[in-house]
């Protein structure tokens, strides 16, 4: 089974081998889709694969260690009336869900590719991207 989660952690946790422990102790495969760390804390989008029980225990382990875990179930939507097709989001979207179309000059949004990591939300200058809850 596979599941994608967004992790939020404070700076102290950033230096601990949390993902290593997930792999070693909880027999999970961890695929890091996106990692961002700054002075306020860190954010990571990971895909966990393994047995359902292990995934549940792995997520519990993260929570016990003070990591915020948000499963990616919600979608992200683009308001096409607001988007100016500037392209700011293109270089930060980890999955190329937002991509430049050289033919039209427009920025296309492919929902199927979007993992709802949310990194584009605060990067979009006219605020066209929104998380649906």
């Amino acid at each position: 089974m596979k599941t994608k989660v967004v992790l939020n952690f404070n700076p102290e946790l950033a230096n601990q081998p949390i993902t290593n422990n997930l792999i070693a102790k909880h027999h999970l495969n961890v695929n890091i889709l996106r990692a961002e760390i700054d002075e306020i804390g860190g954010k990571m989008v990971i895909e966990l694969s393994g047995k359902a029980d292990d995934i549940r225990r792995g997520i519990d382990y993260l929570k016990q260690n003070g990591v915020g875990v948000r499963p990616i179930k919600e979608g992200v939507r683009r308001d096409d009336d607001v988007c100016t097709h500037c392209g700011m989001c293109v270089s930060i979207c980890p999955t190329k869900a937002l991509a430049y179309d050289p033919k039209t000059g427009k920025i296309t949004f492919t929902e199927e590719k979007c993992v709802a990591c949310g990194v584009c939300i605060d990067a979009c200058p006219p605020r066209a991207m929104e998380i649906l809850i």
Partner: protein
Amino acid sequence: MTAEEFKQFVKTNGVKKAATEVDVVTTGTFGAMCSSGAYFNFGHTEPPIKMQRVWMDGIQAHAGLAAVDAYLGATELDETNNMMHGGAHVIEDLVRGKAVRLKATAYGTDCYPRKEMDTYVSLKTVNQAVLLNVRNCYQNYAVATNSSSRTLYTYMGKLLPEFGNATYSSAGELSPLLNDPYYRSIGIGTRIFLGGGQGFVIWEGTQFNPGVPRTPEGVPKRPAGSLAVIGDLKQMSPDFLRGLTFTRYGSSLGLGIGIPIPILDEEMARSCAVTNDLIFTAVFDYSQQTRSRTVLREVSYAALRSGEIDIKGKMVPTSSLSSLYKARQIAQLLKTQIMKREFMIEKPIQNFSLERVFKPLDVRTEKEAM
């Protein structure tokens, strides 16, 4: 012809033929133009007030002018520094036809006794609403990247750590001043497409700096010229005027500008034929917190547009901050308006001086400043 069509035409027919057959080339750009704002005349109250402090939807406008005039800056924020709604957003709201809350206070004089005013205004109620921007339409701009270990939030957008991305903001070969590198046809008095309406170039833009390094064709490789522009806000449209938010930097105005360039001679045709592979700019590391960052490398707009550039051996994804889609739309619109004679082309009344230098601000004594 639009600038893109013209470049194609020159490729197949040569500069000579282009110079004789094409009259006008239209350029366009749509990007964040921070040094913008609008002034208003609200009309007189009963009894009259000499507004000393003015707020429009909670954002302070500069009121150190006479009585009921005020200037609202695009990057102005409210007291809480709410970046989601700055001066630029208020200007967009007005252009959308919305009413905006106007508050004013004053100390009161014999001729202007009123001390407070709290009301609503819109583009319908005010006498003048004029976009007046002191630095727009930069001729070329830097590429920003980030070598540090944390995400940076800048006016060049979100910069991911460890050279995670690079952002650039010029429209390249479609950008007005890159097609007229020595300001032969763009000068004071040039009529322009501004935010959906028509406006004028009124002066050189602030920080005008024509003396930067240039390519053999004369195209500047660094931010060089810029324009001060003016236009009636009442003609403008939210399609080409937007309030923007750069997280943890502030608000800015997304603005569309288009400028026609008459093909006066072969030299003009040659400069308008310039393509993205011949326009270069410099990449800077924005984690260096200084006004004189070191150049990491020079790169062409063709490379930037490809979606990836090489920085120190790493392929770094690129993002444009200015909309190519809207730039094209503007160049097309301008072309149609010129053909329908709805847009008249003006010769500049006066050309810009090429002698300007761009000076820094240092802490100095009164004597040193003299």
